[in-house]
């Protein structure tokens, strides 16, 4: 209905292959970016930034990371939490070793370490497929978690066993540590997430993205067309882990301020996996939608009893949240197993062909 595509024609491949060939989509994206970069910073309070937007963006990025591996390359992973942890610990060590370096750079660099480790754990993917691969990534999850506990060097021999993010400045502004303002953190997280999302969109529309999808859709045919399975899968593991690592580092640096090994436990892996599945496998925008759903919904649920004047113990709310989230996950899987991205796609298609049904 709002998609009026008549008169939009492409005179070059460049325009035809643009990320968003439809004018209305471009306008929509601009609106979203304007909201994210202008409206929210102007109007949002600290609570909204700290408790909703920052974690939402961090999780979105992590979901993009996992989506690269699972959604685009078809390799199931249950180790996302640990890969995020690698990023967090790596960034922590980097900034400890180079206290004067720009911490944003360190965060971006930390992903390299998780990429390397991700690639190592991706090695078995050559021979192992599907659920069996989940075991590999579970091994990574538990092994790495164990490392976070058992290797005191990783947390600078803190008595608490946790990493605590020091005060760091970048470009003359406090960006991490307790004094960093939410708005600064928000902009950093938003900037990094938006940038990586854009760069990934580039990768996914090109040769490499295609080779991942070839492996996902039909690995044998892919191989017969000259795709080297191991290389391709390892690259997906590495890229995915890089993104997860950066997300993990952002999680502790710009959101939590401190993290224990349990912050990066298997339940985080599952949380991200849910975001990806509900958002839609193989869709970048789905990652954002999934993250919003899984993160923001419980936050809202927590506030519902208070706002409607019922006094319920925080614990009970927690329990109910679990139930509701679980039930909603099943509900949405039944309604649309391909996630919100597919729902949006269907809705968009309907709008494009409106008033016709197809």
């Amino acid at each position, binding site marked *: 209905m709002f998609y*009026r*595509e*008549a*008169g939009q024609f*492409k005179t070059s491949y460049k325009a035809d292959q643009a990320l968003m060939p439809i004018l209305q989509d471009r306008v929509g994206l601009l609106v979203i970016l304007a909201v994210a970069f202008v409206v929210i910073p102007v109007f949002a309070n600290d609570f909204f930034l700290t408790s909703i937007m920052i974690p939402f963006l961090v999780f979105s990025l992590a979901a993009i990371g996992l989506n690269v591996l699972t959604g685009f390359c078809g390799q199931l992973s249950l180790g996302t939490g640990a890969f995020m942890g690698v990023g967090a610990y790596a960034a922590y060590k980097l900034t400890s070793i180079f206290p004067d370096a720009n911490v944003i750079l360190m965060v971006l660099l930390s992903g390299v370490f998780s990429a390397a480790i991700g690639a190592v754990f991706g090695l078995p993917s050559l021979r192992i497929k599907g659920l069996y691969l989940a075991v590999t990534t579970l091994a990574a999850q538990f092994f790495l978690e164990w490392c976070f506990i058992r290797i005191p060097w990783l947390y600078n021999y803190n008595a608490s066993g946790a990493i605590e993010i020091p005060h760091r400045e970048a470009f003359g502004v406090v960006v991490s540590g307790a004094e960093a303002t939410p708005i600064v953190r928000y902009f950093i997280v938003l900037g990094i997430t938006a940038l990586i999302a854009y760069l990934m969109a580039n990768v996914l529309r090109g040769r490499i993205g295609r080779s991942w999808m070839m492996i996902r859709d039909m690995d044998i045919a892919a191989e017969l067309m000259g795709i080297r399975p191991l290389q391709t899968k390892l690259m997906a593991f590495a890229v995915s882990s890089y993104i997860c690592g950066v997300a993990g580092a952002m999680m502790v640096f710009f959101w939590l301020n401190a993290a224990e090994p349990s912050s990066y436990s298997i339940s985080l892996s599952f949380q991200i996996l849910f975001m990806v599945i509900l958002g839609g496998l193989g869709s970048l925008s789905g990652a954002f939608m999934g993250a919003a759903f899984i993160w923001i919904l419980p936050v809202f649920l927590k506030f519902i009893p208070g706002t409607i004047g019922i006094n319920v113990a925080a614990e009970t709310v927690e329990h109910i949240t679990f139930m509701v989230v679980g039930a909603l996950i099943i509900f949405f899987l039944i309604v649309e197993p391909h996630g919100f991205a597919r729902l949006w796609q269907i809705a968009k298609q309907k709008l494009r062909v409106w*008033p*016709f*049904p197809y």
Partner: protein
Amino acid sequence: MVGSASASPRGEDTFPKILLHNAKVLGTRTAFREKDFGIWQSWTWSEVCEEIRAFSIGLKSLGIEAGDKVAIVGSNRPRLYWSMVAAQAVGAVPVPVYSDSVAEEMAYVLGHAEVKFAVVEDQEQVDKLLSMSEEVPTLKDVIYDEMRGLRDYDHTHLHSYESLQNKGRELQAQNSSLPREWEEGFAGGKGDDVAVMLYTSGTTGRPKGVMLSFDNLAVSARNANVFDHLDETEEVLAYLPMAWIGDHVFSLAQAFTAGYCVNCPESMDTIDVDRREIAPTYFFAPPRVFEMLLTHIMVQMEDAGKTKRAMFDYFMKIARKVGEKILNGEDVDAKDRILYRLGELLVYGPLKNRMGLTRMKVGYTAGEAIGPEIFRFYRSLGLNLKQLYGQTEASVYITLQPDGEIFGDTVGKPAPDVELKIADNGEVMYRSPGVFVGYFKNDEATEKTKTADGWVHTGDAGIIAENGHLKIIDRAKDVGKLNDGALFAPKYIENKLKFFPNIKEAVAFGHERDMVGVFLNIDLTAVGSWAERNNVNYASYQELAAHPDVYSMVESHVDQVNRDLSREPMMAGAQIRRFLILHKELDADDGELTRTQKVRRSFIADRYAPLIEALYDGSKTKHVRTEVTFEDGRKGAIEATVEIRDMEPHVPGKDYQEAAE
């Protein structure tokens, strides 16, 4: 005789000259687009000029001479359009041919036109031309656009478009004065030189080659551009056969004179998508295209959900009520206006978007009569769809509906510079700058069609209404006269009768008789459902047809037709005086209809001679026995007593005011 004198400003007189002019003035504007290899490949006017020059010079190197005929065979492609102008630039005459016509017909046309060169689309056409070497002995060289499948053919007299163009470019590179020489070559060309030859597939006899001069085309095109305010910003979709005058004028003559952009679709399968992508601002389609689009819409809406359909139906009702009025700039009350706006957002806008007509400024339909319902549907959406009446011999334009003066049953007012008159026998005649030079190698036909003082017989009978609009009533040869000299147009009367859902077929008699009498067939479905609602019992068509109530109902319809006829000065004399409802349905199996469901008047007249006799001898009833063929092939006979009713004619010209609305 009516006419219009608003001549448009004249510019360059031949297309090669116009091309140079456009390249200079509109150089950077896009002139042609073709969806090819997934994107709209585009050429600006200056690029087009270069392309045409290179090809034209290449053609010359093949030894083409002024006056040579160049066949153009294929679907709408920029290169084929360019070939025409390239040929004109060296004084040759392009002859676009229907690419899908059967080999035999094509061979006749090419042979008759004595074509020396042919520019064709692909292997299919090359093969076709190869197969007709006997019939077209003049053919020397063939140039093709698409290489596929032709690699292994002997290329002595076969050339690819590209290779010729490259040759042209090489020659230009070797001799820098060549471009100037090329331009000088056509600088002396005159407006009354033959620009193109288009073969019309007349209903009878062999196709005739209509020679049109540059003046014919350019002046007509300029007039049309002025009439509809078309300029270089228009976009058109070139998808109708290139051999058809309409396409030649819309996609070449008007495009060159106005400087607008011509878009060629990717293939016949993708036209809908291509149209949507381009969203033409000036669009022409024969009625069947509009019919198809509408059917498509309705079929798709059938599958839509209940709410959506209800919404669609509701807003279509609004559109029917006020859409056309709003389009014509009439007064509509505020509530309807708001509802129409809402409908525009929810239904009309999206519909136009899906059809790719969002940007349409002017749309035309012609060729045959468009169903009034269909016509109104598009107009009610806010689309400025109009009808025109034209012919190859007139360089299309004879009459056009001006904006705001749209009447479903007329084809508009004379186009600028066109004079119009109705001959004594009712035939429409015109005189205009677009009138063709003559038929190629057929002076006899030329003389028969075109009078010495330039009037052309259209072959159609029509009348000019009081408001100056032309109304086509029938083929001229079918129009007869009553004994009192009144004009009798059977098809016109029959169509008016058939407009009533209850009447399925009508056969009117009256030529060289005292009055008009009609045979009718009722529509079993429509009348059957009427019968059901009114508790009329019947066992067969025959019984229902003879039912007095049915007769009364039909009588009221006939009376209505008579009233309509009485309002039209030229037709008022041919009102229906007597009618009968046939005791059996006219059937193609009995030879009464053609296989395409057209009535065979003379056959029916013979077969039902007793009834005709009764129609004119004043009897009230007549018993007849008719042989029939049943569906299983058995033969039998139907016997019946058929009632004949008299009708009271209306006074001519009464209620004319009413009709003008």
